[in-house]
């Protein structure tokens, strides 16, 4: 049953020799095979995992092993791993095997972590339900009626795998909420670090000024441990920050006395679920009881974050995804006699990209095209500056941390949203997207179950580079909420 362990518990057991990395890895591989119904792991790497586990056991025996030595992890399909299929959930990268490793996986495996395989996700991280994946959707382990529920997206496979105890932790990426929303939907913890904290090298790009990788784990302590291993300056990413990485785990003191917690009034939106509103109040009460001061704050441009994002992200995507042209890697369409290079591009991209990716590329093409660049793209970049300034003013006024909901609703059923109107799906990101625009860190913490028995999470937002303090606040919430519920195994 060791697959159910947290990273911190497994670390301690591994160091004491109570369990071997090989046994721990086998337990996860067994759980993964038994969990195929969840469609979380889309490329399994058992040989690689067992080889890494044997190496980890040798290292543990020699002593002085890093925290992640021997810890089995799942890796989102967006991270390049040499010779392991990496498709970003897209048919256009079918058969692609990277010739190099991402910096994040290099660091994780360098510390001795074990790679169990690649995890399902929305195509190119574009989605909030994991339904725009070429593998079909991952399924939420939480189930309260006949329906199968979404694990959220885009890191839906990561959230489902961690929640169902198929792995001890997973990597995710977050461009508009893709770590925090699925974490909240599946009852786990997920942190999006400050932009620049974790290298983007070797992570397939969606929107480069918004993308940031982070851990998805079973506890705040695990998030602190794993983030510490993922973070740090990387000369291969020009936006990677050259600043020291603090000891995040050591920051978990549980002492937030005298801290000022901002409650942004603009996040209390019309039509918010009464249960989420009540949970938010409860979270504020918990932080107050721990000695923090609760302060009403205003982030006036909040309502413009969604339209701003849906200009900037597609604009960057249309540029980033221009590289999928059927020449260097991935899919190339079969051509008819007389087809030239333009037909090759157009057919390849029509066959390879799914509908949502095609739409975002075209929206991005539109807002960047002559005559619309100023009206849409430049205007969005100006509003983005205002959204960032809202946060800067709040923090300058002495706020240490901001408490907000993570999602407007609990997990919904597969096929229930966005089929006729894509914008309906976009509204899932309304509480998470502001941080990506401002480059700030945010963490989703599971707080409890709703009346139907589905997990609900809250979100804490920190100062730039303030992950240590942010994690400590999350630790207090976690301890106060005492969320220990697990999905009943049905798969």
């Amino acid at each position: 049953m060791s697959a159910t362990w947290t990273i911190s518990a497994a670390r301690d057991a591994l160091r004491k020799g109570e369990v071997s990395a090989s046994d721990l890895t086998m337990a996860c591989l067994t759980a993964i095979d038994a969990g195929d119904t969840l469609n979380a792991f889309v490329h399994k790497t058992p040989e690689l995992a067992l080889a890494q586990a044997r190496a980890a056991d040798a290292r543990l025996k020699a002593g002085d092993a890093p925290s992640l030595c021997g810890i089995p992890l799942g890796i989102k399909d967006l991270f390049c791993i040499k010779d392991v299929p990496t498709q970003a959930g897209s048919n256009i990268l079918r058969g692609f095997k990277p010739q190099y490793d991402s910096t994040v996986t290099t660091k994780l495996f360098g510390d001795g972590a074990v790679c169990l395989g690649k995890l399902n996700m929305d195509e190119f991280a574009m989605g909030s339900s994991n339904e725009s994946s070429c593998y079909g959707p991952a399924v939420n382990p939480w189930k309260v009626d006949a329906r199968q529920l979404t694990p959220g997206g885009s890191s839906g496979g990561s959230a489902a795998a961690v929640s169902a105890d198929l792995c001890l932790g997973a990597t995710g990426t977050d461009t508009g909420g893709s770590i925090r929303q699925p974490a909240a939907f599946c009852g786990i913890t997920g942190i999006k670090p400050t932009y620049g904290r974790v290298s983007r090298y070797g992570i397939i790009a969606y929107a480069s000024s918004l993308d940031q990788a982070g851990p998805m784990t079973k506890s705040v302590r695990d998030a602190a441990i794993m983030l510490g291993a993922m973070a740090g300056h990387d000369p291969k990413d020009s936006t990677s920050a050259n600043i020291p990485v603090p000891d995040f785990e050591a920051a978990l003191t549980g002492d937030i006395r005298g801290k000022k917690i901002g409650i942004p009034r603009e996040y209390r939106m019309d039509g918010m679920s009464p249960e989420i509103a009540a949970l938010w109040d409860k979270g504020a009460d918990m932080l107050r009881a721990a000695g923090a001061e609760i302060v009403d704050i205003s982030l006036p441009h909040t309502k413009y974050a969604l339209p701003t994002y849906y200009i900037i992200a597609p604009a960057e995507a249309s540029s980033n995804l221009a590289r999928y042209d059927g020449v260097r890697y991935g899919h190339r369409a079969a051509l008819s006699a007389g087809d030239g290079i333009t037909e090759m591009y157009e057919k390849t991209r029509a066959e390879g990209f799914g509908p949502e990716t095609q739409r975002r590329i075209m929206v991005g093409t539109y807002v960047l095209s002559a005559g619309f660049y100023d009206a849409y793209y430049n205007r969005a970049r100006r509003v983005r500056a205002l959204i960032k300034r809202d946060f800067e003013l709040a923090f300058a006024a002495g706020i240490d941390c901001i408490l907000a909901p993570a999602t407007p609703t609990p997990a919904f059923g597969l096929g229930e949203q966005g089929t006729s109107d894509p914008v309906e799906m976009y509204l899932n990101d309304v509480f998470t997207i502001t941080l990506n625009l401002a480059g700030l860190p945010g963490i989703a913490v599971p707080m409890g179950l709703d009346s139907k028995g589905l997990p609900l999470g809250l979100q804490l937002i920190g100062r730039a580079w303030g992950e240590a303090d942010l994690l400590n606040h999350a630790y207090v919430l976690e301890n106060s909420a005492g969320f220990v519920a697990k999905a009943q195994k049905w798969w």
Partner: protein
Amino acid sequence: MSIDINTARKVAKLARIRVEEGDLPPLAEKLSGILGLMEQLNEVDVTGIDPMTSVTPQRLMRRADLVTDGDQQAAVLANAPDAREGFFAVPKVVE
């Protein structure tokens, strides 16, 4: 403003994505819906605000102008759908 069928056809062409004529009307409709969301930004006063260019205030790193990598032809071509004689192969470009 909404996106008509002609605009949808033009955008698809610019994006190098083949869209069949019959699929243009629903595409135009969905793109118009997304555009409708964006129109909300017209009510924001952005006077005197510069477009954001950097997420965190930092200068781009500079490095010495030295060769750090190379001699990777096989790795570069390893995933190509069509590679011949050490090159990427594509349909005829010049008549």
